[in-house]
């Protein structure tokens, strides 16, 4: 591991100033991904600015009935929070489906959004990887890719985003808030990015992952009010029963009136470089009969754009079955 300086930031302005002063600095949250990547040499920061103790650890109900979640809230506290479980149960389920109890206690909301892919070539500094070393190539396309992307990938990178939490946040139209240091001595500037625009298209720049400005610090995530989210579910498929990354996952919310879909939210995990909002499927579903035939047609509409590789074509069938199964369950519960 490269040697590094360490600073613990106690306020947002201080954190931004410390990062701004050192181009090789990185923010440290729970460290569950960054420290691991530093050990393997994938990440080589010269300075860590520890932001875990910043006063960004609140979860509050917003006046309009949404939720504002601070960036340093741990995964555990997010999943245990009564308002998260009541208003957005799929978000609590998604967080609980990720990692282990130990890691959820350490990991933060901001860090979760910025975690890196678990593609084995990205993690191995002896192998080419366009995400790690731009222009070096993507061995996954011809090699080990059974858990890689089927949607939105490119000839330069087929890695997936590993987050479970992000899938539910995407389904519920989360907005990421951030701050950046001012060039002068003035107050820090801020901005907002809908999660739908937060992750950049892969294209020929897989090393550029987010639309955050350089040096930005995520300060929180806001969930707009969504009554439909109270009837939501996260289901994750993995190669063992617990403590593994998804090979496919789904966050779904459904409101059925008189047998027809009144409102629906649908997002997929482990199939793309980012949590994948299934907008084509949502269009097919909205206003249509809430039955298995519609659910399958909606899945097919979304997955028509899939470009599977030889060893991950199973994900097309897997995601289709997940859509039908989870929406059918939600529709049956709505009918009770």
């Amino acid at each position, binding site marked *: 591991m490269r040697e590094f300086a360490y600073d613990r930031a106690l306020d947002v302005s201080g954190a931004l100033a410390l990062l701004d002063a050192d181009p090789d600095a990185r923010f440290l949250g729970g*460290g569950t991904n960054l420290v691991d990547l530093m050990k393997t040499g994938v990440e080589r920061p010269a300075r860590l600015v520890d932001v875990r103790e910043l006063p960004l650890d609140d979860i509050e109900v917003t006046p309009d009935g949404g939720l504002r979640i601070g960036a340093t809230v741990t995964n555990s506290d997010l999943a245990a929070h009564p308002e998260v479980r009541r208003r957005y149960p799929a978000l609590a389920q998604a967080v*609980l489906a990720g990692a282990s109890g130990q890691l959820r206690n350490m990991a933060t909301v901001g860090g979760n959004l910025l975690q890196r892919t678990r593609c084995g070539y990205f993690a191995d500094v002896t192998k080419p990887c366009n995400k790690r070393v731009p222009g070096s190539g993507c061995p996954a396309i011809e090699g080990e890719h059974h858990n890689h992307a089927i949607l939105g990938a490119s000839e330069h990178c087929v890695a997936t985003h590993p987050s479970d939490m992000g899938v539910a946040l995407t389904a519920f139209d989360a907005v990421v808030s951030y701050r950046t240091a001012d060039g002068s001595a003035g107050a820090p500037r801020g901005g907002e990015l809908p999660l739908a625009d937060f992750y950049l298209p892969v294209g020929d720049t897989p090393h550029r992952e987010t639309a955050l400005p350089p040096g930005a610090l995520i300060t929180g995530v806001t969930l707009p009010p969504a009554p439909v989210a109270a009837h939501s579910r996260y289901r994750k498929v993995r190669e063992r029963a617990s403590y593994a990354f998804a090979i496919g996952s789904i966050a779904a919310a459904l409101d059925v009136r008189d047998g027809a879909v009144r409102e629906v939210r649908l997002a997929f995990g482990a199939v793309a470089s980012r949590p994948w909002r299934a907008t084509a499927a949502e269009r097919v579903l909205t206003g249509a009969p809430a039955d298995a035939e519609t659910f399958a047609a909606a899945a097919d509409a979304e997955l028509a754009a899939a470009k599977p590789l030889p060893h991950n074509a199973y994900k097309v069938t897997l995601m289709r079955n997940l859509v039908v199964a989870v929406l059918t369950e939600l529709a049956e519960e709505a009918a009770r």
Partner: protein
Amino acid sequence: MAPAPSSTSSDITLNINGEKHTLPVDHRTTLLDALRERLDLTGTKKGCDQGQCGACTVLLDGRRAVSCLQLAVAAEGREITTIEGLADGDRLHPVQQAFLDLDGYQCGYCTPGQICSAIAVIEEHAAGWPSAVTDDVRPEAGPPPLSPEEIRERMSGNLCRCGAYVSIAQAVARAAEAKTGEAAA
């Protein structure tokens, strides 16, 4: 004038099992390595060193965490509890006693991590935290019973290569029951 190069080491004070330990550390030092290599607290075990096996589990401010991904310098100011800090003199912690009584181990290497994790599992459950196998996570549904399925899911961050899971799960259940009984008494 160029800024002075920042130091890549610090003198830190760690609060471990109620005792303060001051030591210089290279910032690259994990809490796990500080405990084992610098402070002779070798009860905490190094398994994968990648956050995947749970052998290095300790309690940080009462919550379980893997010490292999926790930088020692970032643990300054936190209350660290390791396997060495659980017993009350010669009297074992009830979770330690349950592991002994029910043979919740074979080779014993993962056991300190299993025990630290189990203590936290029982507290997380008592605090009403749901898990990935909880049918209904809404607060109105109330906490799920700490069934074998719940215990297995909640303990899934601790691997046991001997496969002593059957008796580990029984030991966690026994310790949880004892704690509930104690609270009710």
